[in-house]
């Protein structure tokens, strides 16, 4: 599947304007992002909450009416092996863009690993129908341009709920444009085939979220803020590949930790007297 040559080269004035817009957007993310870390109060992370809730409600209505029933049907009527193969093909196409982002994030070894995945699965795995690279020890990763921006130091910025696309942030939303450009499905020549591929991918993705969705349904008192907090924490974790900094305890304010050992007077006997208590804001 060779990337199709674009019909018209973007004219330089237009692309300059696009760059300026991108710069302004990122500048806004910088400014607004300083206070929008996952641990900060909800108001700081989500200044657009009233608007976001409206969009969330809108997305939910459409999902319940169309997407969820379709995804459920897909899961109930398409044999599991076929669904796994379909998921593998899309996963394989995504691996190439992941490799590009690994490189942009300054991780050449991971880039090489993901590129190898793509090459092996596209050839020996027959266009990605089978994921043979994972059993060979090349683990699957997922990197997108939002994570790359995060790696470059762009803070997440306020939480955004995008119409139809769902949870995002001031940083991650514009990053969807490079993600779209780097998406191999976008490069499919025939418009009809391309749209079918998009549609199938949306259904496949939604079907895979059915279980997680039931979990959220059962766990959340307020689904909106539960998904928001989950999204922001998860994205931060992804930016740091599972090792976010400043995490070693105490991550919680001692004021909020009334049952901490020591707070109620039952300090562990084994703690050396010279070592500072970890819950006293080292």
């Amino acid at each position, binding site marked *: 599947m060779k990337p199709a040559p674009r019909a018209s080269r973007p004219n330089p004035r237009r692309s300059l304007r696009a760059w300026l817009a991108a710069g302004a957007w990122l500048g806004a993310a910088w400014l607004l992002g300083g206070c929008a870390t996952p641990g900060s109060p909800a108001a700081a992370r989500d200044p657009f909450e009233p608007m976001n809730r409206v969009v969330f409600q809108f997305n939910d209505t459409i999902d319940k009416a169309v997407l969820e029933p379709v995804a459920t049907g897909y*899961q109930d009527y398409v044999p599991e092996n076929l669904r796994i193969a379909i998921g593998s093909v899309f996963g394989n196409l995504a691996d190439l863009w992941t490799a590009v982002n690994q490189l942009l994030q300054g991780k050449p070894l991971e880039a090489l690993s993901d590129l190898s995945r793509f090459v092996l699965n596209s050839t020996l795995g027959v266009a990605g129908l089978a994921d043979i690279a994972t059993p060979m020890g090349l683990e699957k*990763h997922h990197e997108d341009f939002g994570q790359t921006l995060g790696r470059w130091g762009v803070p997440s910025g306020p939480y955004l709920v995008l119409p139809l696309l769902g949870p995002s942030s001031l940083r991650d939303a514009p990053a969807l444009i490079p993600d779209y450009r780097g998406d191999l499905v976008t490069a499919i020549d025939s418009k009809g085939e391309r749209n079918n591929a998009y549609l199938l991918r949306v259904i496949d993705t939604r079907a895979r979220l059915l279980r997680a969705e039931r979990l959220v349904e059962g766990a959340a008192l307020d689904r909106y803020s539960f998904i928001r907090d989950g999204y922001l924490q998860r994205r931060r974790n992804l930016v740091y590949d599972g090792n976010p900094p400043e995490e070693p305890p105490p991550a919680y304010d001692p004021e909020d930790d009334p049952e901490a050992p020591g707070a109620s007077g039952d300090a562990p006997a084994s703690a050396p007297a010279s070592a500072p*208590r970890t819950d006293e804001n080292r």
Partner: protein
Amino acid sequence: MTKRLLPFLLWLLMFVPAAAATAATAAAAEPPDRLIERLSNEILERIRTDAALKAGDRKKLDELVDNTVMPHVDFRRMTALSVGRNWRTATPEQQQQLMDEFRALLIRTYAGALSSVADQKVRMRPLRANPQDTDVIVRSEVVQPRGEPIQLDYRMARRTDGWKIYDVNVLGVWLVETYRTQFAQEVSTGGIEGLIRSLSEKNRQPAANGKT
């Protein structure tokens, strides 16, 4: 020869007591990462071999949680952290109610997920901690036959009777941090009583089923 040996002997003298002390404390309490590894494998094995448990049978799950998981969890602290500073304003009875309802909510949530347990394996990630630390993050991941590994981390504190879990991280999302917002929203509208009421209403709703 002796000249060569002397630094070695000095080195030995310096380190033997330290090593002995470390060994002694290790014997007193199972290291936190070993504990997690043992517990995870034990639980995965139990779910794999018990069809009723895998289907989310409440009685069996309660028994597993009470006998295998809870002895290693500081659930009081976990609940208190999730409620945050409002915990102090709750009466002892309310605190007990909060713990009971929160426990029920978490069990309900995980009961539906058990059916997906198959040939996953737990892999420990390196523990970045000093031997004298009393509060650590233990990192692990569940390796699946397909797809990315699932990150599972634990905040653990050292108590007199061993290491206790007080927070769990699934895929980068900390449980306490997430429930803190959920609980604060309820407390701000209905107080501690309102939070208890919302939790028990939530728990009385028909449980999310585990069918795929």
